[in-house]
């Protein structure tokens, strides 16, 4: 595939505060990238820098060979061939749906404009709403108009700033699938910003996790899910619970038993954290005398996958308090009661251990 977007060493300062720092990123033509990160991590700033609404202090942005920024020169937003769908859609309230869609294609002749508008109205199922004003449309319809308007000038790259945040939770998934199909139909390269990892899993081909102005990991969502590269990535995406471990020469000790380590894990230092997914925890039979209780039920909720428990460790006098764990997440069909003491162990698997200050 051809690379469409290249970002090299991009830094952005806003009011003397570094918001993006030496960021590198590439995106292939036709790919959809989901940008996730906590509020204030710089995702919207990155979007604005690509769109031309922020002037980067350093770095280069290139789209399809066209240099948008080189640290000194900055191509105006209107010349970048970058479309954007804003969080609040930014539809022009004084124009009809058709006029909104026509806004960016005024340079085409009338016949071409009409053809383009009708094509988009049909594809986006807005045929009957062409003459309506924006306030007459539902949230979902407004979003479709925003997409039609952004696609009309045929941008090379489409940016979507939290496009689903204003949509009712029940409709959101349906819309995401619909819009993804649409973007694929147009072979559109897109970057979308969200703070909801589930949206990325549904919508994106690639996922980028950001924190404090830096890109932590960029890969396919499934890869990041299976192999997060840092404590921060796994913690932000809530990929599991954390079990503190004391590192020894060939194994690690935890309150849920000994874990046999791979060679590279040994280098993590004295203490590390094991990422534990609910499916990797075994609830032992409490009738068996050999199974010593090591956790206590702190919270119970009922879900479609059975009972969901949060468990805290029971720290005995001969176990160090540094190994105590909190809120270990476990799904089970077995009914337990609040404060009930249970015995847990970890299924053998490829352990993912991280130092906390990664």
């Amino acid at each position: 595939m051809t690379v469409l977007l290249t970002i090299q060493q991009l830094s952005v300062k806003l009011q003397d505060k570094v918001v993006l720092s030496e960021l590198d990123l590439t995106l292939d033509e036709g790919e959809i990238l989901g940008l996730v990160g906590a509020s204030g991590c710089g995702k919207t700033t990155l979007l604005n820098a690509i769109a031309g609404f922020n002037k980067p202090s350093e770095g280069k942005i290139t789209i399809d060979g066209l240099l948008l920024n080189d640290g000194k020169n900055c191509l105006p937003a209107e010349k970048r061939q970058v479309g954007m769908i804003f969080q609040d859609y930014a539809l022009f309230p004084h124009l009809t749906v058709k006029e909104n869609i026509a806004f960016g294609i005024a340079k085409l002749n009338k016949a071409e404009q009409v053809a383009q508008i009708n094509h988009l109205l049909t594809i986006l199922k807005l045929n009957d709403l062409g003459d309506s004003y924006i306030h007459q449309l539902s949230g979902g319809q407004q979003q479709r108009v925003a997409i039609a308007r952004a696609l009309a000038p045929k941008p090379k790259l489409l940016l979507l700033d939290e496009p689903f945040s204003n949509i009712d939770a029940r409709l959101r998934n349906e819309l995401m699938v619909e819009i993804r199909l649409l973007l694929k139909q147009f072979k559109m390269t897109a970057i979308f910003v969200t703070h909801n990892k589930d949206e990325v899993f549904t919508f994106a081909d690639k996922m980028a996790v950001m924190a404090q102005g830096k890109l932590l990991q960029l890969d396919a969502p499934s890869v990041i899910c299976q192999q997060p590269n840092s404590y921060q990535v796994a913690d932000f995406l809530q990929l599991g619970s954390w079990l503190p471990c004391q590192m020894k020469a060939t194994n690690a000790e935890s309150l849920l038993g000994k874990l046999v380590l791979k060679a590279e894990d040994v280098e993590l230092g004295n203490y590390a954290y094991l990422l534990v997914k609910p499916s990797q925890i075994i609830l032992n039979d409490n009738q068996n005398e050999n199974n010593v209780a090591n956790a206590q039920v702190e919270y119970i909720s009922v879900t479609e996958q059975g009972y969901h428990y949060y468990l805290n460790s029971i720290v005995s006098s001969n176990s160090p308090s540094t190994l105590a764990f909190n809120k270990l997440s476990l799904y089970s069909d077995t009914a337990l009661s609040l404060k009930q003491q249970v015995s847990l162990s970890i299924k053998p698997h490829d352990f993912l251990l991280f130092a906390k200050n990664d």
Partner: protein
Amino acid sequence: MIALNNSKTWKLSSYLIALVLMVPVLVMLVGGVNASTQLFSHLWQTVLPSYLENTLLLAFWVVLLALIFGVFSAAIITQTNIVFKKQLRWLLLLPLAMPAYLVAYLYTDLFDYAGPVQRSLRAWFDWQSPSDYWFFDIRTLPGAALMLALVLFPYIYMLTRGAFEQQDQNLTRASRLLGLTAKQSFFKVALPLARPAIAVAASLVLMETLADFATVQYFSVNTLTTAIYDTWLGYGDLGAANALASVLMLLVLFVVLAEQKSRAGLRHQSARPNLNRELIQLSFGQQVIASIFCWALVIFGFLLPLTLLIVMAIEYSDVAQLSVLMSTGVNSLKISVVAATVAVLIALSLGLYQRLHSDKYRQLPQQISGFGYAVPGTVLAMAMLSTLGPLDHWLNGVVEALGFTAPGLILSGSLFAIILALVVRFSAIANGTIVSGIKQIPQSLDYAPASLGVNLKGSLTKVHLPILTPAIFVAWLLVFVEAMKELPAVLLLRPFNFETLSSQIYQLISDEMLEQGALGAILIVLFGLLPIVLLNKSKEKV
């Protein structure tokens, strides 16, 4: 915040506009400060203390009366089940359309010794001379205060009513659940929460009072504004007039600063407007008292003066009056249309500059351009004379030096001075309306055109200006009406033989001949009603 534009021409012109609007007042202040200490000490030893005392006393009484009228009427309308509430709600705004000097003249005419009220009383009770009975003298300082309060209280009524209606209804509900009655809840929760709005409104009333010229002049109450007028027109002493104007300016500045300080941090806004609150049920007696109170304000503040004007117009109007009305009306229209258009263009330019330019201090030109509203018309007129007069002399000198005939007073002696004064004074009104219109445009609409390949010019003409059309219209209308009503600046700055509706009516009032200009006075009142209708409509939408 992300900025879109860094045009140097736009930046330069914005600061230049702000400078032009501010320089006259600065020149006047410098002139006032530099006025000889001898002159100032002479003023201080003779008239200044009594002028100051009168000004402060008048301000105190007007604000007190306007607070009583405004806060009580707002409370009655929003908190009780008074009958004819729907009608009173907007009727109480109408006195704002009535210039105070008109009310002053009409009530003097009505209640004077020779007026119909005292004549009827004398006839009924067979009194022969003033020594036979006591009757209040309206042409006094308290009389002037009452006249001003009667037409200025709607500022307090309007803002306090808005504050009551915008209060979070859950606060009232919480106080009721904690055991307060509706009445107690009003005094312990609603009224304290409305304090910032009341403070703003009271400072507006105070500024209008300090700026008033015609009412106090007619009642012969010597305040700083009348002193400035007399010192300049009577004695031709620009230095002394500047010194007095500077004192008045400092007084106004003090009010503005005190008001801002008093409500710093006091903001009570609500997402749950209090529209369906439980009303205080008035007993029959309370209904009567509340109704008399509210209707008296409407009648004495608006309906009675208007009726008197209409009666005068019917009795005394003739063709000659109509032709004078036409010519003065056209003059008023001319300066008001130009002033409103210029003020709106400036407000648009500076408002959009503030929104779209990358300048770190982009809000500064807009802020500077708005301060003129606090400057009384009389002070502003002095400022124009102090600045444009010397500028004219300099221009004439330059032209003569170049071998041409001196053009005369092309700036200070022409409509330019009046229009500039009106623009300086009312730019704040246009700014307020346009900036609030701009603020309602979501930030994303600034960026959307660029993301669709449209440049700033296209964005302004296709997006911002069309969306701002209603705000532009309202701003234009508000400035237009204020300019139609403005008196002191016009009186002091008009070229010879140039009369506007307001200056002509003032002249007729001074000559005790308002009957001759009743039609013009009605016209001013009708123009004054336009922004009230607009204001009321926009408040109804809330």
